[in-house]
């Protein structure tokens, strides 16, 4: 197929074509150039060229890529699969769980990965419904995080079970034992909600992928051509196909938002429904949702930095403006998180409940207190000190550092909620500090697994939704209003 570099089908005449050489307009022209280079939406390239960039970025791998893949595969094979086999054969005794720490690092992982997965939905659904144009280049990169994050979350659930080979008893299907699962249990609500969320977000990842798969189909040979041909389902781009696809995407965007809120709320109810000190808190629902967004948006910052630094042509699509936008978002969410955490803290602090007070004291002064301080520093201090500065927000490596810091802080937060809270019970006779054992290599293996899946996916499907970028670029233009060139956004849909 001929790759032609032609101008886009713009709704408005492109700026700068009406230059008459006057000094003011030359000055205005200079400003337009600044606008052009900064904003992706005002710096359109011909579709064919963007397609070629996406394809090249997807197809090119160097030796460093494969070295990382091999290392990750080894970590996943030994740290995750082999250790999990030991866990199944030996029993939960090889993990660090005991009385009263019945839930440990695996549950921290469950909450953490579901938290990561919320970022994808936030960006591709909420920002879409709110018509935030800045989302366009990284919706798919974020949605991939959702899908792979949910895979890890599901694995973490399986990991903590004593008899994991009987997990299928939780599936509500008619059976010979004539038994149904117990829907009184928050774990069943978890099961239903996570299944719904995983299926929905995979479908929502796939729908906007179809036109890009069609593009890749037209530009591939060999096994890739067959792969994209199957993925594209014969999509041609006819008006009817766009209508059906667009309608479904709108339904998904609106419907998946309440599902997203419900999933992490239901996960929080695993703890809130329990009558343990530190868990039985009514603020857990929104607290967990905001926490999920906090860790998720930060993870997106980190992933975008890695993509931009390691893949070809990504500097055209992922710009400083996107880091700036996500940085502002991260600051706001960090403040919201602090608000909810303060709620969760002040209520037991104020009241006289013996067990609650003892737990708070243990969190702040016990042997695990360093984790509590890490949480506060990484979730509040670091974002609040750095993210208010616009120049710093536009520094990708600094934003990646924030991404790592906040994720460490949020992991610490979940550690405080699960293994640290269960250390203290209502009976002074029963208390024990949790010491993670096989959970550590398995957790490391899961992080490696996530990265491995993501890296493989980055070379199998185009990470940037080119058609959505072009759609946005077609709607943006510069219009002369008075003496200035003003960015105009047309509602072309």
């Amino acid at each position, binding site marked *: 197929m001929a790759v032609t570099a032609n101008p886009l089908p713009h709704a408005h005449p492109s700026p700068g074509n009406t230059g008459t050489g006057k000094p003011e307009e030359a000055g205005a022209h200079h400003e337009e150039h600044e606008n052009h280079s900064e904003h992706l939406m005002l710096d359109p390239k011909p579709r064919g060229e963007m397609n070629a960039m996406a394809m090249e970025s997807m197809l090119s791998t160097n030796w460093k890529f494969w070295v990382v893949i091999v290392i990750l595969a080894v970590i996943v094979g030994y740290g995750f699969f082999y250790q999990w086999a030991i866990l199944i054969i030996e029993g939960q005794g090889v993990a660090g769980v005991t009385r009263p720490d019945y839930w440990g690092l695996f549950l921290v992982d469950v909450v953490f990965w579901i938290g990561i997965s919320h970022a994808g939905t936030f960006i591709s659904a909420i920002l879409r419904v709110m018509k935030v144009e800045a989302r366009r280049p990284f919706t798919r990169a974020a949605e991939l995080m959702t899908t792979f994050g949910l895979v890890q979350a599901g694995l973490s659930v399986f990991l903590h079970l004593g008899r994991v080979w009987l997990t299928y008893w939780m599936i509500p299907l008619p059976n010979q034992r004539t038994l149904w699962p*117990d829907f009184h249990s928050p774990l069943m609500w978890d099961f239903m909600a996570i299944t*719904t969320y995983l299926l929905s977000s995979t479908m929502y990842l796939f729908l906007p992928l179809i036109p890009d798969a069609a593009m890749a189909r037209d530009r591939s040979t060999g096994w890739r051509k067959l792969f994209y041909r199957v993925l594209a389902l014969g999509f041609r781009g006819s008006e009817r196909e766009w209508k059906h696809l667009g309608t479904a995407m709108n339904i998904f965007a609106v419907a998946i938002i309440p599902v997203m809120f419900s999933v992490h709320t239901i996960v929080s109810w695993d703890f809130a429904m329990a009558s343990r000190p530190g868990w039985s808190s009514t603020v857990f629902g929104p607290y967990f949702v905001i926490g999920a967004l906090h860790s998720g948006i930060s993870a997106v910052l980190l992933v975008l930095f890695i993509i931009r630094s390691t893949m070809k042509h990504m500097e055209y699509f992922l710009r400083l403006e996107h880091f700036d936008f996500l940085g502002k978002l991260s600051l706001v969410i960090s403040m919201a998180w602090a608000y909810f955490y303060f709620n969760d803290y002040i209520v037991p602090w104020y009241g006289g409940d013996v067990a609650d007070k003892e737990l708070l004291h243990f969190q702040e002064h016990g042997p695990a207190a360093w984790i509590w301080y890490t949480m506060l520093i990484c979730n509040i201090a670091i974002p609040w000190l750095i993210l208010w500065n616009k120049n710093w927000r536009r520094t990708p490596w600094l934003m990646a550092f924030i991404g790592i810091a906040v994720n460490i802080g949020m992991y610490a937060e979940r550690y405080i909620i699960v293994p640290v809270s269960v250390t203290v019970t209502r009976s002074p006779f029963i208390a024990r500090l949790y010491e993670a054992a096989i959970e550590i290599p398995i957790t490391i293996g899961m992080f490696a697994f996530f990265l491995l899946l993501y890296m493989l996916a980055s070379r199998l499907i185009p990470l940037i939704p080119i058609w959505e970028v072009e759609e946005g670029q077609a709607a943006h233009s510069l219009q002369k209003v008075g003496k200035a060139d003003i960015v105009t956004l047309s509602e072309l*849909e």
Partner: protein
Amino acid sequence: MSENFTLVALFQDVNHAAEGIGKLHELGIDDHHIDVLSGIPIKGSILGRPHFKTNVPRIGMVGAGLGLCLGLFFLQGTPLLYPLHVGGQGLFPLPPTLIISFEMTMLGLMGFSFLGVFIESSFPAFDATHYAPEVSDGKIAVFCNCPTDLQEQVTNALTAAGAESVRPVEAHLP
């Protein structure tokens, strides 16, 4: 009745494509004999095309209803089939009913909307009869099915409207 044949014209932007379609209308070719392919969705009114209806929302609603029934069955039906008492709650608890019904309704809505895209677009359609790969490069392809005696007029009209190329294809329009 003269034979019909199909032409495809490639345009590089919406203005020219709209002009071309307008010229086809002037020549008496109605909307049923025209199909437009594009690399990004283009609102029908921009090109002077009719508004297309889709059944995806209705299919989604069917799915939502089925999901709601499933959720209610899980919470209110299974305790009738196999009642087991657990402490502190009745056999038919209302808040879990709301939770599970909500999740199943949403799953049904989204799952069936997804299937609706397949059904409505007849996916997979690997043997699609008409396609122009340039479409994924940003071109707008206008397919029109017209009687043979109009061929030259149509070709001239489309070229005058700014088509990059006009060529005949072997295809049947839906």
